[in-house]
């Protein structure tokens, strides 16, 4: 599914990833863990660069359009599945069937009440869930998410992660919360200073093992 061989990558001119070898098979749920600056975000970007087709992305800065409603931001995940004309009409007059589909996804993320509210007027945690909703609406073989629950509380994090893992067969998450990583993913990749220093099935690891990375 994903195959990277001795890859290097730079972020803003600084080399942040060294010699990355990574193979991910269909159906795997991966968590990338490590300190901030260890290269998690760059690795997510790198995978997206290599495999952009049929891949949904939840970037760290959400990638939302503040002046558009929640509905439109979520619908944006599927722009490529409709004609330009259809998209433009939907921008001015939301299509009833699309609204229903988006509403169904939002209700799973406790965002139903904000369907037509401009994203700019939502809180940080709500915005983050809108970005997740967009990826769920987009669907695909692979989900790449960079800290997708960093701004939502513990209980909601679990709801959101569950939705994401159910929605996609293969998932790569950057997570700084190791408890969540161990609870939801089946394979853990530890990064330190741009190198992979740990690659192990989650069930063989304890929290103690991962703490050494921090």
């Amino acid at each position, binding site marked *: 599914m994903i195959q990277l061989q001795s890859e290097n990558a730079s972020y803003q001119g600084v080399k942040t990833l060294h010699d990355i070898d990574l193979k991910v098979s269909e159906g795997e749920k991966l968590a990338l863990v490590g300190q901030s600056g260890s290269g998690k975000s760059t690795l997510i970007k790198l995978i997206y660069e290599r495999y952009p087709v049929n891949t949904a992305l939840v970037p760290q800065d959400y990638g939302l359009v503040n002046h*558009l409603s929640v509905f439109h931001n979520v619908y*944006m995940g599927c*722009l490529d599945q409709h004609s330009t004309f259809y998209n433009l009409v939907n921008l001015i007059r939301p299509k009833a069937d699309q609204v229903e589909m988006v509403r169904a996804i939002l209700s799973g993320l406790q965002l139903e009440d904000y369907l037509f509210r401009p994203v700019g007027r939502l809180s940080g945690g709500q915005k983050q869930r809108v*970005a997740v909703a967009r990826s769920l609406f987009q669907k695909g073989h692979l989900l790449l998410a960079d800290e997708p629950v960093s701004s939502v509380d513990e209980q909601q994090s679990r709801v959101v992660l569950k939705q994401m893992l159910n929605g996609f067969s293969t998932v790569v998450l950057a997570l700084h919360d190791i408890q969540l990583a161990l609870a939801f993913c089946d394979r853990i990749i530890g990064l330190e200073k741009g190198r992979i220093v740990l690659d192990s099935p989650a069930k063989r690891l304890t929290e103690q093992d991962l703490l050494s990375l921090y």
Partner: protein
Amino acid sequence: MDSVYKHSRAWKVSWLFVLLAGFSLFFSDIEIISLEPWQELKRLFLGLLTPDWSNFSEIIQAFLQTLAFAILGVAGGSAVGFLLAQIFHWRWIQISCAFIRAIHELFWALIFLQIFGLHPLTGLLAIGLPYAATFAKVYAEILEEGDKSALQAISRNASTISTFFYARLPDLWEHFKTYTSYRLECGLRSSAILGFVGLPTLGYTLSSAFMEGHYSVVWALLLLFYLLIATIRYWVRPALLPVYIIAAPFIVANDSTISFDNVQRFFTEDIIPAPIMRGDSLSESWHWLSDLLVNQALPGIANTVVLTQIALVASGILTLLFFPLISSHFFKPVGRTLGHVLLVILRTTPEYILAYILLQLWGPSMLPAIVALALHNGAIIGHLIGRYSLEIQLRADAGRGLNRYFYELLPRLYGQFLAFLFYRWEIIMRESAILGILGIATLGFYIDSSIQELHFDKAMILIFITALLNVLVDALSRYLRAKLRLTTNVDCRASNDYCTARE
């Protein structure tokens, strides 16, 4: 004794400009020629007390024409500019736009008058063409600087148009709207002065009233113009714009038709340099060209530069005097209101009209042009700096009066002040050239004379030189701003203030 203290670059550059302006003063002709200038000025201001609305239908007609040309020109310009902004990364588009922008609306009007006569297309293109070039540049800057984070999450298979309308336009819409509505205000001023070269807008009525000494009518026109600009946000509504755009063509329509012979002759005969038309020998051609360059272009350039440099520094000095008038650090609300009224009047009156009025009163010399340019630009930048000064929080025990001015405010505002002033350098130069049409010997004077003598080939070369000079000053201004690190941040750039500074 040697001083350890070192002055900043901004300080040195400022003095360099002041010295240049002082030096230029020796080469400028500054005098009051008319016999009783102050008497005439008094008569003018007495007219303010008795505005004359008796020709109401004529006044309304002039305003409708002014509005219609402005709306059509700006609407057309913004539509074309919007499309050009999408391909603005192409180098030749940037260069052509810089060149088109560098030529003043009035010069464009003089050119199109030659091609289309008094057909409405002349006014439409005279505004629309340079505005399209400006829109292209600023829209492209807005697109470039806007948040692009939503783009990364969108599937790469989505169509460009869908992506643009979903991921870019909604968040940039406010910026486009603010800038475009600001440009409509500029468009009204441009449209008004097109009357001075014969289009049926405000300038036409104003100049005829002036020639006949009907100062009461002049004031009626000016007061109505101030009212129109002051209320712009009430009558420019998104819902009303389509109505205006549909109505405008009916207002500007007239009986004149485009003569295709004229169009053809313009491109195949009029603008072809005379030596080529005549098939002159190389030495004869050189003689023709050097005559044009030495006797018209050079003195025109020299006078344009002299006027520009004096007017630039005078604008700067007036700015520094004007901005405290509207700043709460210096004046109480009553005083500030008066300051606002003064600055609004000065910046709303097109500099061309100011110069025209002063020239009629004082006779032709550089003085009216300097005063007009300095008042208009000083009021614009003074307004911006005054508003900017409100963001400064002074400590409770800060000094008062001049101490406050020189120790607390000026040091904090000076960088912004220089940035705005350099932004307007190119605009002042464009205006200096155009004021030549009023009889001051800048490039506009030679261009206008060539056109009067039906030497369009010479006029085109001189216009080309004027444009080059502008592009050069623009580049110099950009260089100095970079050198002095006078950058405006993104938020400020997208705001209305930035638009005002940039025009």
